[in-house]
C-alpha cells in the first residue's frame, strides 16, 4: 500500500528513515527513467538531513547539486544556492530527494528531448509521460516517489500529470517564488506539486507557497492554509466549454462527460459557457514565451558555467559553437522564434500584440468567473501518445490548447485523473478558478476524486 504525503506527515523518525531507504531501493531500478539519476545510473541525490522526501525537477536549484535542465548547455553546473521553494520545503519538514527528468530547458511536452534520455510513461512504456515535467509525473505515478515538484509554463505540470494519471497543480502566478527556478518564460512560469492525490497536493502547495522578497513578481498577499481549509462538501457553479470537450478523443471525451454527470448528481450546478478561440491564445503564448526565453537563455553562454566548446578560436566562435552544440533542436528553434518576434520592425506586430491578447484573455476569464466558481476543461485533446509520433513543431504546440490560456491569464489550474481509456492510458480533466481562489479547485477536486473513485493500479501497488 502506497504511503501518501499526508500519511508520511505522521511517520516517526525511524519510519521516515525506512521510507527513504525504500525509495532509494525502488529507484535503483532504471525502469521508466523518471529520475535523472536512473538515466545516469548513479544514486539518488539527497541531503544530509532527515525529512519527507520530495523529488525535484531538474530545473530547480538545490545547493551543491548538479542542475542540467535536461540540457548539455548546463553540463557540469553545480548550483551554489537553494531556490526559495527548497528552503520552504526544508522549513516544513520536507527534503529534496532525487532529481527528475524533463524536456530540455522546459520546452516540450514529451520529456523526450532531455540530454539524459527519455522518461517513459509507467502505464505504457511506449508512450510519453508528457512534458516538460514528465520525470516528476512518472516517478509519482510509478511509485518511485511520494510526491514531486514540477514547473508549468504552458501546461508542463498539468499535461504530464494527466498523461500519467496523477494530480498536478499549477498555482496562481506569483503564489510560489520563482527565485531559483531556471527561467523559461518569466511572466508565465510557476512551480507546483505533482502528487498521488488532491490532499497531498494541498499539503505540498502549502509548503512551498508564500511571498518571497527575492522575487519581484511574487504576490505580497496573505496566504491561508489550503490543507486546513479543505472541504469536499461545498457545491459550486462549474462552467463547461462544450466546444473544447468535443475536440477530445472519444474515450477521453466520454470520461469527461461521465465526470460532469457525477458532479451534477452530487449537487454542483453545471453551466455551459463560451470562452475564446484557443488559436489566439496559442499565438500569444508562443510569442511571449519564446521572446522571454530567447532573452532568459542568453545567460547560457559558456562563459561562467556549463558547457563550453573546446578550443574556440575567438570569443564569437566560443559563443556560437557552445550554444549550437549545447542546445537541442527545439530550444534553438524557440530561441530563433523569440529573437524574431522581438526584433526591430516586428516587435509591435508580435510581442506587443501578444501582450494585448494577454489582457483580452484575462478579461474574458474574469468575466466568466462572474457567473461561475470554477471552469472545467480538458487538459489535452488526447491521452498519452506514442513516442516518435510524427508531428511538426506547430502540431506539437497545438496540443497545448487547453493549458496555455491558464498560464497567460495567471490563473490556478489542476489536473485530476478520472479514469483510463481503452488502451489503459489515464484520462483526466482540469479545474480552473480565478486567481487566489484555488481553495475551490482543491475542494471540488477532492470531491471529484471521491466520485470517480479512480486510482491507478500502479499507484495502489508498491511498497512505498
Amino acid at each position, binding site marked *: 500500500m502506497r504511503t501518501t504525503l499526508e500519511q508520511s506527515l505522521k511517520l516517526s523518525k525511524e519510519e521516515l528513515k525506512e521510507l527513504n531507504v525504500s525509495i532509494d531501493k525502488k529507484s535503483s531500478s532504471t525502469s521508466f527513467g523518471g529520475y535523472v539519476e536512473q538515466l545516469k545510473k548513479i544514486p539518488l541525490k539527497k541531503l544530509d538531513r532527515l525529512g519527507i522526501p520530495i523529488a525535484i525537477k531538474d*530545473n*530547480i*536549484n538545490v545547493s551543491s547539486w548538479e*542542475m542540467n*535542465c535536461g540540457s548539455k548547455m*548546463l553540463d557540469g*553546473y553545480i*548550483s*551554489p*544556492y537553494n*531556490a526559495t521553494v527548497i528552503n520552504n520545503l526544508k522549513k516544513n519538514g520536507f527534503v529534496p530527494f532525487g532529481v527528475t527528468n524533463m524536456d530540455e530547458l522546459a520546452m516540450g511536452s514529451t520529456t523526450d528531448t532531455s540530454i539524459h534520455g527519455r522518461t517513459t510513461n509507467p502505464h505504457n512504456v511506449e508512450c510519453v509521460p508528457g512534458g516538460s515535467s514528465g520525470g516528476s509525473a512518472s516517478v509519482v505515478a510509478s511509485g518511485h516517489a511520494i510526491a514531486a515538484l514540477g514547473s508549468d509554463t504552458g501546461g508542463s505540470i498539468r499535461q504530464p500529470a494527466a498523461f500519467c494519471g496523477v494530480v498536478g497543480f499549477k498555482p496562481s502566478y506569483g503564489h510560489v517564488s*520563482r*527565485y*531559483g*527556478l*531556471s*527561467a523559461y*518564460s*518569466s*511572466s508565465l512560469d510557476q512551480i507546483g506539486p505533482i502528487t498521488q492525490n488532491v490532499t497531498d497536493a494541498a499539503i505540498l502547495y502549502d509548503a512551498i507557497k508564500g511571498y518571497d*522578497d*527575492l*522575487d*519581484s*513578481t511574487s504576490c505580497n498577499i496573505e496566504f491561508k492554509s489550503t490543507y486546513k481549509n479543505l472541504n469536499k462538501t461545498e457545491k459550486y457553479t462549474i462552467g463547461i466549454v462544450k466546444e473544447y470537450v468535443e475536440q477530445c478523443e472519444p474515450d477521453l471525451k466520454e470520461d469527461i462527460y461521465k465526470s460532469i454527470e457525477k458532479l451534477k448528481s452530487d449537487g454542483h450546478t453545471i453551466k455551459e459557457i463560451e470562452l475564446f478561440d484557443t488559436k489566439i491564445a496559442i499565438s500569444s503564448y508562443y510569442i511571449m514565451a519564446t*521572446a*522571454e526565453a530567447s*532573452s532568459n*537563455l*542568453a*545567460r*547560457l*553562454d559558456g*562563459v*561562467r*558555467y556549463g558547457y563550453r566548446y573546446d578550443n574556440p578560436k575567438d*570569443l*564569437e566562435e566560443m*559563443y556560437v559553437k557552445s550554444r549550437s552544440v549545447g542546445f537541442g533542436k527545439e530550444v534553438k528553434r524557440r530561441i530563433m522564434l523569440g*529573437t524574431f518576434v*522581438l*526584433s*526591430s520592425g516586428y*516587435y509591435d506586430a508580435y*510581442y506587443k500584440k501578444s501582450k494585448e491578447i494577454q489582457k483580452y484573455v484575462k478579461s474574458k476569464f474574469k468575466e466568466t468567473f462572474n457567473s461561475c466558481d470554477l471552469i472545467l476543461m480538458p487538459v489535452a485533446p488526447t491521452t498519452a501518445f506514442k513516442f516518435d509520433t510524427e508531428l511538426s513543431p506547430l502540431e506539437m504546440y497545438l496540443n497545448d490548447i487547453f493549458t496555455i490560456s491558464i498560464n497567460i491569464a495567471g490563473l490556478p489550474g489542476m489536473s485530476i485523473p478520472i479514469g483510463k481509456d481503452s488502451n489503459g492510458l489515464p484520462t483526466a480533466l482540469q479545474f480552473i478558478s480565478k486567481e487566489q481562489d484555488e481553495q475551490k479547485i482543491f475542494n471540488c477536486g477532492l470531491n471529484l476524486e471521491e466520485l470517480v473513485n479512480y486510482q491507478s493500479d500502479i499507484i495502489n501497488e508498491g511498497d512505498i
Partner: protein
Amino acid sequence: MFELVIGLEVHAQLNTKTKLFCSCLTSYGSVPNKHTCPVCLGLPGALPKVNKAAVSKALKLATAIDATKNNNSIFERKNYFYPDSPVGYQISQLERPIVEFGEIKIKDKENSDKIIRINRAHLEVDAGKSTHFNGYSLIDLNRAGTPLLEIVTEPDFSNSTEVGNYLKKLQSIVRYLDIGNANMEEGSFRCDVNISIRPLGSKELFTRVEIKNMNSIKFIEKAIAYEFDRQVEAWEDNTYETQVRQETRLFNTDTLQTKSMRSKEDANDYRYFPDPDLLEITIPRNMIEESNVIPEMPDKKVERYTNEYKLNKEEAERIVQDITLNTSFEYLIEQGAKPKTALTWLVVELVGRLNKRHTNIKDSSITMETLSALISNIESKNISSSSGKVILDYLFDNEDRDIEVIIKKLNLKQINNDDLIIDILNDLIKSNPDMVNEYKAGKKKVIGSFVGQIMKKTNGQANPQRASELVLEKLK
C-alpha cells in the same frame, strides 16, 4: 563656415551601498568576484530586485535639475552578448525613464548663462571588468550590477568650453546631492560625446558620431577638436557621406585621434522589451515627497553668499567649486568666522600652502577646528594677521595644535594696550622731529614709517591698525 552640435551622455555611478538589482556590496578594489551572488553572476534561476536607494538618488537629481519624476517607470532589457554582461542583456530604461525633461544652467564661452536641456536621466546597470592578456581575457564581475544614472542632454552644446563647464557643473551637482563621487579618473563619471557639424546658422541636424567612454575633460576637448576638423574636411572634400557615418568611434589618447570601432556585424538590434522579472515601478508618494528635500545646491549657495555674505561673484563661485572646500568654509562660518576672513584664510592661506606642498584639503594635517581657532584669535585681535601666517607655517612643520599655547610659545600675542604703543610713539616723535615736520608738510608716508618702527620695536606684536590710528591722532 561650420558650427559644432554636441550632445552628451554621462554615466554617473551612484554611491548606494548595494547594487541596483541585488544586495551585493558596491565596494571596489577587492578580490575579484568577491562581491557577487547568483543575481549578478547571471546564474539560472536568479532574479533582480530594485534598490530603493538608487531610485531615491535618481529622484534627488530630478529635484536639483527641475525635471519631471515619472512615478510609474519601466525597466527594459537591452539584449546583446558580451562577457562583462553576465545575463546577456543590460537592464536599462527606454520608454519611460524615471526622470525626464530637466535643465542645467552653465556658463558659455563669453561667461554668460546658458541653459542645457536634459532630455532624460535613467537607471541602468554597470558591466563587469575585463582585463586582457596575451591570448586570453579575465572577467571580474564585482562591478557588474552597480547602479548607473545615465544623464542625456539635448544637442545644445556649441563648443568644448561649454562641454567642460557642463561636466564640471554636473559633477558638482552629483557630489552636492551626495548621490555619487563623480570622479572621472576613477571611472565613476564616464562621458559619451555625440558630435555633428552643420553650416553656420543652419538649424538642421546632420550625421552624428559617438565617441564613447571619455574620462578626462582635457581629452574630450581634443577629441571634439579632432572630430570637428575631420568632419569639416570630409564635407569640404565631398566625402561626407562615406567618411562621416553614424557610428561609434574611440579616442586614442596617444595619437589624439578618433578611430572607427569596426565591428563585424551591422548595428546590433537590441530588441528592447519590458523586463518581465520586474513589474512596473510605482514610486510611493512619500518617496516622491522625500526626494523634494535636497541639500543646498551650488547655484543657491552662490546666490546666498553674494547676498548675505557680500562675497563677490568670483569669490562665491570659487568657494563652491569643490565640495570639501565648501563644507570647510561653511563650518568655519558656523564657528563664528566672518565670511571674507574665512574665505581668505581657507582659500588663499591654507590651500595656497597645501598646493605648494602638493597636497589637497582632504589630506591636510591641519583640521578645520584648528583653522577655526586660528581665525578666531585673529578676529579678536589677539594676534595680528601676519602673526597668523607665521602660526600657519608653524602648524605645517609641527605637530602641536593648541593655538593658545602656540601663541604663547612664539610670543606672538598682539599688543592691544594703547599705553605701550603711545610710549613707543612718544619716543619716536622725540627722536625724529624732522619726520614730524615732513608729515605736517604733507608727506603721508610718515605714518606708515612710524607704524613700521612701532611694529619693529614690539617684535610685530603691536596691533598695526591701532598703532596707525594712534600715530594719526598724535600727529594731528
